């Protein structure tokens, strides 16, 4: 990538005093687009294709009005859909179905890619010192931020346009397609703004990305809570909720689009106001001096691993504790929002009454918790690769620390850390559900056990990441793509009618749908064995390969 820097041609015209702060922006945008010329178009296409394939699957799966009415009723009767996918406003058309089923995932992917893009071209450039190289040329103070925001904004808009074109292309209503595409693009723009701010607050690009990603997580939970309880206003507070509140293909509430547009402007204004308050490479929050000598405890590579992982681990545990408590509490009231028409009561009866709905809801929740939680496993594994590429493994491995011991210190946080995140969440999901349903003693073990059953599948994701790290270190970052593929297969595979062989690729497919379904130990043992084998191959490979 450093080679690309030299491609920036020198600006020949002398910038005027007013244009000075933005001097070189155009060149930087070209540089950013050159660097991202593959990754951004691929993501835009993946997002648009995913939604369009949903729209075309709808026609095949629900060909006649009776089946569409059945779908509408069952979705309305089962709030576990609302938690993952948001409210459904129109399931009678392919477009409305797509906006419901794929709105959140399209918004999630667009937002995160946009946010990471801003960070990559702003804070990460400062981290690596490349910014200094550029700043020494004719590059204005606001140019890098402007270029990062412009690139991510362009990505969001292009994704929205592609989304509109592809959904309309498979036969959905054009006006609705425009509304949906705009809603997704604007969510991407909001997170472009979020990342512009976090790039000013954080000291490192990783922290900036974590802050932006966590913001999405919190706003998603806010929407999920609003959509599965009577406090619907919570959903209105969340930019993730606005994607659905546009009611694309139903009423097309165009004015809702003003909310993300205004939010984007405010966030960008904040970022531009914060930027001059700090030095290049530094954060707004000044670092405090550390200890002159190490505490007696800092004497093993495991102790160092703890120092490196503890921030992320504690953050995940706190986040998952809140999520567990929140959804546990919501679960017991979830049948209330179904409505009480005669038809709904009949649906409820078919699903096993209020209790059946709550169990279905809980099993959806545990699946979602596992998929999100497995991101911790990937993040913790990638930490090892990050340490390696930052040349911080060498000083350790040239002391008495062997490779196995170094690896063991990190694997503990990958595997046991994943277990800790899930266990805390499981415990509080049980407490929340138990308290609100009035039977902690009876419900807690059931919910706790059902959630823990997800652990082996999460370990498989971790194992795959460890395997990549050991065997093909340069491709370790592909662990994200792999984890995303597992999640997409499990979330959208069934609705897209994918063959069972494809569904089986995802470890999450094999977890019994507890507490909804019967418990079977066999798949869990297989998943655990698979995870162990993946980790073992990864560890063996690491012992044999070059470091660095």
């Amino acid at each position, binding site marked *: 990538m450093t080679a690309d820097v030299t491609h920036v041609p020198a600006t020949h015209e002398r910038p005027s005093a007013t244009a000075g702060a933005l001097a070189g922006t155009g060149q930087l945008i070209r540089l950013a687009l050159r660097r991202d010329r593959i990754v951004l178009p691929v993501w835009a296409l993946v997002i648009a294709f995913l939604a369009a394939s949903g729209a075309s699957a709808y026609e095949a799966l629900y060909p006649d009005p009776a089946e569409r009415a059945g779908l509408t009723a069952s979705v309305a009767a089962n709030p576990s859909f609302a938690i993952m996918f948001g409210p459904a406003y129109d399931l009678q058309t392919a477009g409305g179905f797509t906006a419901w089923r794929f709105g959140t995932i399209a918004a999630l992917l667009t937002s995160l890619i946009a946010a990471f893009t801003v960070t990559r071209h702003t804070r990460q450039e400062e981290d690596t010192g490349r910014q200094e190289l550029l700043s020494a040329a004719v590059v204005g103070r606001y140019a890098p931020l402007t270029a990062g925001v412009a690139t991510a904004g362009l990505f969001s808009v292009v994704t929205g346009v592609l989304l509109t074109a592809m959904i309309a292309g498979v036969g959905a209503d054009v006006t609705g397609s425009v509304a949906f595409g705009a809603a997704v693009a604007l969510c991407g723009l909001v997170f472009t703004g979020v990342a512009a701010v976090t790039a000013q607050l954080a*000291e*490192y690009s990783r922290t900036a990305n974590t802050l932006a990603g966590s913001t999405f997580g919190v706003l998603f939970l806010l929407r999920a809570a609003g959509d599965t309880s009577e406090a619907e206003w919570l959903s209105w507070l969340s930019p993730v909720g606005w994607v659905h509140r546009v009611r694309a293909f139903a009423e097309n509430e165009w004015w809702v689009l003003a909310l993300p547009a205004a939010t984007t402007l405010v966030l960008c204004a904040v970022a531009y106001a914060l930027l001059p308050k700090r030095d290049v*490479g530094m954060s707004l929050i000044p*670092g405090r*001096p*550390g*200890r*002159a*000598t*190490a505490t007696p405890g*800092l*004497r*093993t*590579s495991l*102790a*160092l691993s703890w*120092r*490196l992982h503890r*921030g992320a681990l504690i953050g995940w545990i706190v986040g998952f504790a809140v999520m567990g408590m929140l959804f546990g509490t919501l679960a017991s009231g979830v049948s209330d929002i179904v409505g009480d028409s005669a038809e709904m009561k009949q649906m409820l009866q078919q699903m096993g009454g209020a209790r059946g709905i709550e169990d279905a809801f809980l099993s959806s929740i545990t699946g979602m918790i596992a998929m999100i939680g497995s991101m911790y496993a990937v993040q913790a594994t990638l930490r090892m690769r990050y340490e390696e590429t*930052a*040349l*911080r493994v*060498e*000083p*350790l*491995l*040239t*002391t*008495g*620390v*062997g*490779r196995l*011991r170094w690896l063991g210190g990190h694997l503990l946080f990958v595997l046991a850390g994943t277990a800790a995140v899930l266990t805390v969440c499981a415990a509080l999901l049980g407490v929340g559900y138990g308290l609100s349903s009035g039977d902690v003693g009876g419900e807690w073990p059931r919910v706790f056990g059902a959630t823990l059953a997800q652990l082996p599948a999460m370990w498989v994701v971790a194992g795959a990441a460890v395997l990549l790290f050991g065997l093909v270190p340069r491709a370790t970052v592909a662990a994200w793509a792999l984890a995303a593929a597992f999640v997409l297969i499990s979330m959208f595979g069934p609705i897209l009618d994918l063959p069972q062989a494809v569904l089986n690729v995802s470890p999450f497919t094999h977890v019994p749908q507890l507490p909804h379904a019967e418990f079977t130990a066999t798949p869990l043992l297989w998943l655990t064995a698979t995870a162990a084998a993946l980790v073992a191959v990864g560890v063996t490979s690491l012992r*044999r*390969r*070059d*470091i*660095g």
Partner: protein
Amino acid sequence: MTYNAASTTTSGTTAHEAIGVAGLRKTFGRTIALDGLDLHVETGEVHGFLGPNGSGKSTTIRVLLGLLRADGGDVRLLDGDPWRQAATLHRRLAYVPGDVNLWPNLSGGEVIDLLGRLRGGMDKRRRAELIERFELDPTKKGRTYSKGNRQKVALVAALASDAELLILDEPTSGLDPLMEAAFQETIREVRGEGRTVLLSSHILAEVEALCDRVSIIRAGRTVETGTLDDLRHLTRTSISAELAGPPNGLATLPHIHDLRVDGNTVHFDVDTDALDEALRRLTAIGVRSLTSTPPTLEELFLRHYTDELPDAEADRTENARTAP
């Protein structure tokens, strides 16, 4: 301390060898990083390890540290196999990488202590002494250190240990002249204690001041190894002379290079072996004044780094501090 050409064909270390590398090969994909490299470092010596950028110095060091696996050849370190016995051998050595990166949330003092403890303990008094000598603030964290200060953290961690072998990969590239002096002082102390140092460096004055022997590598092979005195014989002396008459016939001498004639004044380089003959020729014409500049390591260096010595523009009287 003699030029030990014979040992390059033997495999393994002899009893007094701290490092013995013979015929080392390492490839990365299609790139050949090391192509039959030899390196022999005797116990108790400070050995300079020189070569242009990308010639394979760091790769050699990383093989010695068991971080990279050799594709061929023989590597012995402290009478052990650096790949198989990495962790055991590492307790007896200390390493300063060329690129020092610190953990952002650890202070310099914490890093020094951690690395010392992982190696099996360090001398606290020596740690304090070195921090003072290198004027290091141990309370700063990760990136708030400048490049030179990050290097000092790694230097203090390595030098405060009681390791019998120090492997230093361009350890002073970011240090100011004062710190450079402190570094040289410390290395002299280390040698006085009988410890062995492998010093990869581009700072020739440092190598001249510290090293007993040097090895020069190029494109993954050892091209020269020996004491500095040995190597000086292989290079040229610069002569500037004002003569009594025109310098006829000088240009035909085979050992004279880069001859420039300016009236009765001549400037040329002469192979050190042929100095005698050249001077006889000058005195035959009659010498009014004469300046002779002995060969510096820089010339030796340039000669091996490039195919030809560059034109005599290089000012020899200047201190050979910086590599080109």
